[in-house]
């Protein structure tokens, strides 16, 4: 396997422009002759589909939900970054780049991250022009707020529903192009396989989630925008339909999977309340602007938190990180929550929670001001927990939130399979070992609006893409394999439900491949995953049949893929003998629990090649060395 990042030469600031000047262009009348399959309608997929269609390509757009507007991106709360410098606090593209590279703990590609910062401003322009109702100041101009990992205010937001508003903007742009006849819209279709013809991605196989029909689609390129794989942990903040299936099946067809072990655990989520729990709810990071995180100094202190005097509270983030305080990056905040609860200072019935307290902010700014900023988040909290956060501190705990790992892509966002492009959370590209808040929305939209539309043109113009028919042998083989797998799942007819298996897999992952990892635990995890996977295939019970709407069947094949991915994640975590960003190995930390990187040996992207599955997963590690020409590698410090 050859991994060529195709990063253009020259100064960082001019790489993207130079690239745009040099890539092949397709004339408008030629674009009309080409067909692109865009899988997924989150921020990345909706923006890519709309932009490609506007350029003249014929696009087919697929998603699992009954409408493109319901993609998981809809749930993003806090905001989107851009280097506009409206607050005049000294922000620049360079600074956004620096923060993102540092936030990722120097495990991402400089050139990609710089481009992301460069196009960030255009995203805001685009969204505003679409009618996205961002928050504004009295002047009528756009407002900003701060997010973790940055000392400037560069986050644009639409109350606590930024993802919803940005997605509706992109969705509407897509709907407009459906109206124009340029997008063939296929909701409730799940991609089950990638079709590779003569070494190039030329189509996909889907299952119609209503009729159960297996269908074949051909095109000149495939853009995978299918989101992240956080649900491998069963409990996460991701929507229930989020899955790894599309990406994993591409991996099995030859696409390298990069940095699978980089998983972001978000520090501010509502804690688990019982075994029946089906998902975890995020409380936006923006709350850390005004909320103070603390635990009682006394272990097992069961007093009402409001009765615990100031001197008996441990504001551990403020004390340990005086310059960033409650706004340290997510990985640091999560790790510290784990440390204090491991030490017995956790609160609530499970002891697996800490306080996020707005008392001081309400005293300072008044209840109305806090309500105006966070009203809907406070309501959501009260709805779920039955507690009123205006009167009682919130209880929070870390939860799996985002996956930095994903399919490997080059500077053009193309995987190592020619013609297979990957955008948004599904690729590995910009966040290294840790993503900063408000930068996933930025990346998804950067990829879809401003990168893919150009780089696809370059690929199509530069390759001879003779038409392929869906009758081609490769389509038949892939369609049969998909149908067979569904039959196989239905015919196990065992005793244990899919959810039960998934929950157990999630527990293994959370305990051993979660916030902190170590060699022994990872080795155990690999054994446990293998044996549970074996049991799954012998004892799972999937009700009903394949020929109609059958959610259990959908979940069954997604869980089957998670069982394979889980092993790869553990393998990846095991080979990375260092701590970096969200990947904390107990063996590699300073005395006070800070991550210790090993730049000499691990400054690389781990790109895994699938080699087969035979009781155990066979995977070969390839390394893309990360070269840092423009930033100096430092031990991260938020002290």
């Amino acid at each position, binding site marked *: 396997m050859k991994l060529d990042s195709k990063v253009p030469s020259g100064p960082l600031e001019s790489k993207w422009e130079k690239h745009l000047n040099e890539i092949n262009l397709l004339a408008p009348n030629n674009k009309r002759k080409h067909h692109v399959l865009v899988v997924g309608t989150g921020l990345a997929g909706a*923006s890519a589909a709309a932009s490609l269609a*506007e350029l003249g390509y014929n696009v087919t757009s697929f998603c699992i*939900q*009954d*409408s493109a*507007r*319901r993609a*998981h991106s*809809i*749930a993003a709360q806090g905001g989107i970054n851009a280097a506009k410098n*409206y607050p005049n606090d000294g922000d620049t593209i360079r600074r956004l780049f620096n923060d993102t590279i540092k936030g990722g703990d120097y495990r991402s590609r400089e050139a990609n991250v710089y481009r992301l910062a460069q196009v960030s401003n*255009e995203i*805001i*322009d*685009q*969204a*505003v*022009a*679409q*009618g996205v*109702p*961002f*928050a*504004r100041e*009295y*002047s*009528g101009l*756009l407002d900003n707020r701060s997010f973790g990992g940055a000392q400037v205010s560069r986050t644009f937001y*639409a109350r606590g*529903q930024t993802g*919803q*508003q940005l997605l509706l903007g992109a*969705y*509407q*742009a897509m*709907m*407009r192009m459906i*109206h124009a006849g340029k997008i063939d819209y296929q*909701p409730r279709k799940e991609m089950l396989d990638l079709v590779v013809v003569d070494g190039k991605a030329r189509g996909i196989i889907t299952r119609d989630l209503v009729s159960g029909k297996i269908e074949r689609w051909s095109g000149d390129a495939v853009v995978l925008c299918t989101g992240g794989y956080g649900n491998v942990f069963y409990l996460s903040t991701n*929507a229930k339909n989020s899955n790894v299936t599309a990406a994993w099946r591409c991996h099995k067809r030859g696409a390298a999977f990069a940095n699978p072990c980089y998983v972001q655990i978000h520090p501010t989520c509502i804690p688990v*309340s*019982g*075994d*029946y729990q*089906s*998902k975890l*709810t995020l409380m936006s990071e923006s709350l850390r602007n005004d909320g103070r995180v603390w635990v009682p100094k006394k272990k097992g202190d069961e007093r009402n938190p409001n009765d615990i005097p100031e001197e008996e509270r441990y504001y551990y983030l403020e004390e340990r990180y005086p310059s960033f305080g409650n706004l340290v990056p997510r990985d640091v905040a999560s790790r510290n929550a784990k440390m204090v609860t491991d030490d017995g200072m956790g609160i609530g*019935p499970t002891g697996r929670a800490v306080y996020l307290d707005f008392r001081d902010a309400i005293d300072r700014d008044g209840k109305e001001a806090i309500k105006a900023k966070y009203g809907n988040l406070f309501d*959501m909290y009260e709805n*779920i927990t*039955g507690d009123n956060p205006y009167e009682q501190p919130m209880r929070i705990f870390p939860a799996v939130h985002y996956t930095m790992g994903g399919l490997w892509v080059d500077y053009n966002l193309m995987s190592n399979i020619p013609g297979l492009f990957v955008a948004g959370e599904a690729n590995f590209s910009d966040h290294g070992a840790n993503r900063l808040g408000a930068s996933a929305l930025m990346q998804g939209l950067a990829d879809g*609006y*401003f990168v893919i539309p150009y780089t696809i043109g370059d690929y199509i113009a530069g390759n001879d893409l003779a038409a392929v028919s869906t009758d081609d042998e490769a389509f038949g083989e892939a369609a049969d394999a998909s149908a067979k797998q569904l039959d196989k799942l239905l015919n196990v007819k065992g005793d244990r*439900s899919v*959810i*039960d298996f998934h929950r157990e897999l999630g527990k293994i992952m959370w305990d051993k491949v979660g916030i902190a990892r170590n060699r022994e635990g990872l080795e155990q995890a690999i054994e446990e995953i293998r044996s549970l996977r074996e049991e799954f295939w012998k004892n799972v019970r999937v*009700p009903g049949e394949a020929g109609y*709407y059958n*959610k*259990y069947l959908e979940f069954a094949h997604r869980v089957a893929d998670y069982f394979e991915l889980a092993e790869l994640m553990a393998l990846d975590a095991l080979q990375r003998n260092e701590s970096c960003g969200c990947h904390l190995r107990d063996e590699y930390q300073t005395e006070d629990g800070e991550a210790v990187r090993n730049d000499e040996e691990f400054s690389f992207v781990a790109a895994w090649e699938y080699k087969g599955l035979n009781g155990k997963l066979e995977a070969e590690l390839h390394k893309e060395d990360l070269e840092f020409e423009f930033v100096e590698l430092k031990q991260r410090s938020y002290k």
Partner: protein
Amino acid sequence: MGGSNMTIHLKIWRQEGPEAEGRFETYTLDQVNEHMSFLEMLDVLNEQLVTEGKLPVEFDYDCREGICGSCNMVINGKAHGPKRLTAVCQLHMRNYSDGDTIVIEPARAAAFPVIRDLVVDRSAFDRIIEAGGYVSVKTGSAPEANTLPVDQFNANKAFDYATCIGCGACVAACPNSSASLFTGAKIAHLNKLPQGQPERKNRVLAMVEQMEKEGFGDCSNFAECEAVCPVGISISAIAEMRRDYMKAMFDDN
């Protein structure tokens, strides 16, 4: 953990497909924790059904956070159930008592055919947006964001309308199965912003026409839609839509 357990009786609409005849089936669950969400209670039921070798109840959901609009069902006659401003995925069992009977039906409307059990086809909503619910701005052609200030009052108003999650509860609650709240919300959102002005007239004409074509009924001001809307869209959206529609009809410049 903790929280008290209760027994809940369920009467749920089961229907195998759009053409099939449906019927209510009854079930009893006796370990329902008050901290469970309503959908988690249905998960527990489904696990039980699967163990018994029966088919689980199908229902739509995704985010389980009240934002994606996937979930929609009618509970004891009310879309999204008893709690105001709450989508069913955000409803918790602490709103019920031990021994309660809960009747669950799909969100019925001529324009929302049943797919299976509680799952309905809401693609008509997409087609209404497709007809004109957007600003026609191409990627790359946008002016600098702060060149067009929007006063805070209107920006907030626009947001209030834009927050519609497209769940269809408004349609299910309306005696006429009208989609006016959904359609009006998008029209009002874009009307409040300068970006929405150039296409204002065509938008309202196209969207209203599409709404009628899909077989949604007319609005007779029952306001049931506003009462069940999980995000509190105001029926002022409908007034706004009507005003614009009349204006657009009679203004032919």
